[in-house]
């Protein structure tokens, strides 16, 4: 075998190995989606969303309290994280040269890498311990903290993409900086920012670890923010580790709902990003 031939064979093998690694990664993805759909689809029905869990041993019933809980927790988290995240993102992009902006960016990236279970401990410390009471509010705090850095960094990145001419135009017309930001620059980046928020929502709605000892769990229907509240994810955890087949069935159904939500959000995000890119040429 000549040297050249050997080089070409090595190269072909390398290309093959790279293609193979893509396939290897797609196997677990396909398997997870397949099983979640196959196991979940039989149990996703009206009762899942409208009925309360039945006592252990009885079949049927639903997870109404858990889904309502997840909605409440996600809304709580988002209501704090969206404004804080967007404003922090505006700060980082508007004053990008300043030392403080670098510090905020570093803090946001750090926060993004903090394990969710540690965020849970923090939320426990500030929102459970002082009141000696697990609560929906504490869960909302934990989810909000997880969401802030995602919203902030997406907002920053998208604002930086807004053409400088737009800003200059606004300022030349006599707008103050605040006015230029809120009437020209942010609206120009809005579709992207909304996408970022959507992805962040999908992420926090699927969080479990930070809720284990903040919002805890609640077998009853509750919308009281000062009381423990159920959530779809914690409920999946409880059901998955229980010995009852009927609970396993519901865990799969709830997992399918979660995955469908995440999938739709990702797809929407991809659609918006593609459109934004096309508009920019």
């Amino acid at each position, binding site marked *: 075998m000549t040297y050249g031939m050997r*080089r070409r064979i*090595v*190269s072909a093998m*390398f*290309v093959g190995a*790279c293609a193979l*690694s*893509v396939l290897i*990664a797609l196997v*677990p*993805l396909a*398997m*997870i989606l397949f*099983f979640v759909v196959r*196991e979940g689809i039989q149990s996703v029905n009206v009762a899942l969303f409208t009925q309360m869990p039945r006592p252990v041993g009885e079949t049927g019933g639903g997870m109404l309290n858990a889904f309502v809980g997840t909605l409440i927790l996600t809304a709580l988290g988002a209501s704090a994280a969206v404004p*804080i995240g967007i*404003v*922090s993102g505006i*700060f980082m992009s508007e*004053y990008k040269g300043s030392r*403080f902006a670098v*510090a*905020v960016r570093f803090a*946001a*990236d*750090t*926060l993004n*890498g*903090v*394990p969710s*279970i*540690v965020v849970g*401990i*923090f939320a426990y*410390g*500030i929102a459970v311990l002082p009141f000696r009471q697990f609560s929906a509010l504490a869960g909302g705090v934990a989810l909000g903290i997880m969401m*802030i850095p995602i919203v*902030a960094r997406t907002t920053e990145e998208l604002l930086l993409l807004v053409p400088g001419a737009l800003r200059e135009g606004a300022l030349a017309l006599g707008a103050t*900086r605040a006015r230029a930001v809120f009437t020209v620059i942010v609206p120009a980046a809005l579709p992207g920012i909304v996408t970022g928020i959507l992805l962040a929502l*999908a*992420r926090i*709605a*699927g*969080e479990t*670890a930070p809720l*284990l000892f903040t919002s*805890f769990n609640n077998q009853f229907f509750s919308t009281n923010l000062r009381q423990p509240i159920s959530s779809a*994810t914690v409920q*999946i*955890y409880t059901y*998955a*580790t229980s010995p009852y087949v009927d609970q*396993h069935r519901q865990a*799969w159904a709830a*997992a399918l709902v979660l*995955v469908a939500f*995440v*999938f739709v959000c*990702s797809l929407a995000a*991809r659609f918006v990003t593609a459109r934004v890119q096309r508009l920019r040429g």
Partner: protein
Amino acid sequence: VRDRGDLGFRLAIGAVALLVVAVVVGIGVLLVRQSWLSIQEFGVRFWLTRTWDPVAGEFGALAFVWGTLYSSILALLIATPIALGIAVFISELSPVVLRGPLTFLTELLAAIPSIVYGLWGIFVLIPLVRSLQAATPESMRALPFFSGPPFGVGMLSAGLILAVMVIPFTSSVAREVLKTVPVAQREAAYALGATRFEAIRAAMFFARTGIVGAVMLGFGRALGETMAVTMVIGNRPNITLSLFEQQHTMAAVIANEFTEATGDLYLHALIEIGLVLFVITLIVNAGSRVLIWAMGRTRTPQLAAAPAAAGAAA
């Protein structure tokens, strides 16, 4: 007047941005304060002993540290070659039409909630791993890696599930990093008669700092992962090399015992584990970001120089 208005705006939004910094500092302060009893009581011994006996009030976290490091390194060994392969394939080899869909699919792996990985792990992966373990020949069982009963639940399942979860993070950063390698560098390689492999190898060598950063980022993710791991690893504080044996991790012990922790010392011991998890992930993430950032910097002068050089040649 205008300047004052702008200053007001800057201060107002700066105050909100300060919250982000405050949360990070707050996490650190709270973790230290809420683990102080344990830090005082056990000192360094906490990290060097493995007795975890809440009844006797004896706490040592060595077994959890072992499990966290072992599972994360195992995940890294499995995930890194695959993730880099994906990054190279998508950025260098794939037909353009496949690029978008493949990126979407690998990123979907990152979007699937950890609890769903755990559910899938319990009911699909564990039976698979169990039959794989049962099929392991006796001769191999003599090795320390394959000793122990074939439960399916254990280190191997945890490593596999973590690997799948880490792949999208490492591969997407590696892809970004590869993008920063100047096209001229690749063209030069091809002009010299390099094969695809040789050109890409050169590009990867050029991007090596950023690639190490990408791998570290994945490692940081693996260290802190909680739900999926706790559902498949068995939650037994064993210190063993065996892939079949049930083990435990730092994040998993917090998730499992936090609400049951009776007594302040027990709770403080758990929070001390959280504190160290926080510090480790902080260091790993900061390190990886510095490397990726350094990679971005080395690129700039070269890109700036390229048109100038082309101009000079013309």
